[in-house]
C-alpha cells in the first residue's frame, strides 16, 4: 500500500511539473491577444467595441457583427500621409470619441493577413492606442480568418455607435524619436536594445527603400516581422507561409536573448511592421517597449549626417533603366490599342 502511494505521488508530481511548465510558457500579458472564441463571448457587451482595420470594401463584403470601420485601413486612417502619428493628440481624441471609443471602452482590433495584409494595420492601431494611454486594447489573433475558421457568421451592414469621450494620456516612452535613436547609433546612449523588424535583405542593404540603405548601428537583432507569424503550408506553392496568427513558443524564441527589463525599441521602414514586434514585446512582458515611428524612412533619407553600417546608396541608374523600359512598354501598349481600335466593328463600319 505504502509503495503504491509513493509511486502515485511520484507520477502525479511528474505530471504536475509538466502542467506547471506549460502554464509558465505563456504570454506575460495574455489579455492583449484574444482568440475568436474569447471574442465571441465578449460580443454584445456595451463597453466592448470591435474595430475593423481593413479597407472599406472588405468591411462592406462582410465583417464581424457589430464591428465599426473608419472607412479606410487603420495605418492610413490613424497617421499622416508620411506614415507618422499625429503629434496633435486632440485629433485622436475627436476621432475616437466620434466612433464610440471612450476611456472605459475595451477595443478589440482585427485585420486580415493573407489576402489584404492588414494585420499590421491592426498592430498600428494597437500601438497608437497604447501610446495614447488607453489600457484596454486587444488584438484578435489571426484577424478575421480566425473568426471564419471557427465558422462564426459575418454581417455586411455597417455599425454606427453613439459618441463617447476619449481623453488621451500620452505614454511618451512608447514612442521612440529619431533624436533618441541617433544617440543610440552614435553610442551616446547605451543599454537600449534595438530590434530591426525589416527583412534580411533590407537589413543587409540589398533592398533599398530610401536614399541610403544598410544597418542601423548598435542593432541588437534583426527579426523580420513576417517570420514571427505562425507558418502553414501554402496550397499553391507547397512552401511554408506566414498565416497571420502568433503563438507564444514561436515568438518567444526570437527574442529569448533579450533582457525584458531594458528599454527595447523596434523599427522597420515606416514604423508599421515594427508595431507587430511592439505587440509581441508587450505580450512577452517587456517593461519598456517602444516603436520608432519615423523609422528608416526618415533615417535613411538623410544624405550623410546619420551613421549607417554597410551603407548602400540608392541606385538611381537602376530607376532610370526601369523608367526607360516602362516607356517602351507604354509605347507598345498604345500601338496595340490603336490596332485593336482599327479592328473594332465601328471602325469597320466607317470603312
Amino acid at each position, binding site marked *: 500500500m505504502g509503495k503504491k502511494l509513493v509511486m502515485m505521488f511520484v507520477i502525479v508530481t511528474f505530471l504536475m511539473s509538466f502542467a506547471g511548465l506549460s502554464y509558465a510558457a505563456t504570454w506575460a500579458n495574455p489579455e492583449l491577444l484574444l482568440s475568436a472564441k474569447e471574442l465571441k463571448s465578449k460580443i454584445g457587451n456595451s463597453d466592448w467595441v470591435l474595430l475593423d482595420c481593413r479597407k472599406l470594401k472588405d468591411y462592406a463584403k462582410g465583417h464581424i457583427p457589430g464591428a465599426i470601420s473608419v472607412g479606410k485601413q487603420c495605418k492610413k486612417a490613424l497617421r499622416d500621409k508620411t506614415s507618422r502619428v499625429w503629434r496633435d493628440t486632440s485629433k485622436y481624441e475627436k476621432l475616437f470619441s466620434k466612433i464610440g471609443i471612450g476611456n472605459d471602452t475595451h477595443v478589440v482590433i482585427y485585420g486580415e493577413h493573407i489576402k489584404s495584409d492588414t494585420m499590421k494595420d491592426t498592430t498600428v492601431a494597437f500601438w497608437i492606442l497604447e501610446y495614447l494611454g488607453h489600457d484596454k486594447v486587444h488584438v484578435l489573433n489571426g484577424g478575421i480568418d480566425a473568426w471564419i*475558421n471557427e465558422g462564426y457568421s459575418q454581417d455586411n451592414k455597417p455599425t454606427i455607435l453613439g459618441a463617447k469621450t476619449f481623453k488621451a494620456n500620452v505614454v511618451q516612452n512608447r514612442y521612440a524619436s529619431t533624436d533618441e535613436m541617433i544617440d543610440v547609433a552614435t553610442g551616446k546612449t547605451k543599454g537600449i536594445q534595438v530590434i530591426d523588424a525589416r527583412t534580411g535583405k533590407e537589413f543587409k542593404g540589398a533592398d533599398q527603400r530610401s536614399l541610403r540603405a544598410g544597418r542601423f548601428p548598435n542593432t541588437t537583432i534583426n527579426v523580420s516581422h513576417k517570420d514571427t507569424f505562425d507558418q502553414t503550408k501554402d496550397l499553391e506553392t507547397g512552401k511554408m507561409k506566414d498565416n497571420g496568427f502568433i503563438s507564444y513558443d514561436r515568438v518567444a524564441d526570437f527574442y529569448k536573448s533579450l533582457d525584458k527589463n531594458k528599454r527595447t525599441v523596434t523599427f522597420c521602414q515606416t514604423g508599421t511592421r515594427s508595431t507587430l514586434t511592439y505587440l509581441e514585446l508587450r505580450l512577452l512582458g517587456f517593461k519598456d517597449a517602444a516603436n520608432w515611428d519615423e523609422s528608416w524612412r526618415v533615417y535613411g533619407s538623410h544624405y550623410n549626417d546619420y551613421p549607417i553600417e554597410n551603407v548602400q546608396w540608392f541606385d538611381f541608374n537602376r530607376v532610370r533603366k526601369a523608367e526607360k523600359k516602362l516607356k517602351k512598354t507604354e509605347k507598345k501598349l498604345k500601338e496595340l490599342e490603336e490596332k485593336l481600335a482599327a479592328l473594332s466593328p465601328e471602325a469597320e463600319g466607317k470603312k
Partner: protein
Amino acid sequence: MDRGLMILMVLIIITAFVFGFINSYSTGIQPGYFEKAEAPAYGVGGDLIGAGMDDEFQEYLKALDLEEDDE
C-alpha cells in the same frame, strides 16, 4: 429495414467521414474556410455584399473628417 442495408449505410458514413478527415488533414483546409473570393462567410450571400453601405454611413464617414488618400 434490411440489416445488411443498415450495416452498409453505417460503413458508408464512416468511410466518408474518414475520407473527409484525411483530406482536411493533408490539405490544411478547415471547415468554414472558403477560398472563393465571392463567398465571404456563413450567412452572407454574395448578392448582398455592400447592401448596407447606405447614405447614412457615407455621411458618417465624411463626418470623421479623415485626410483623403493620394491614390
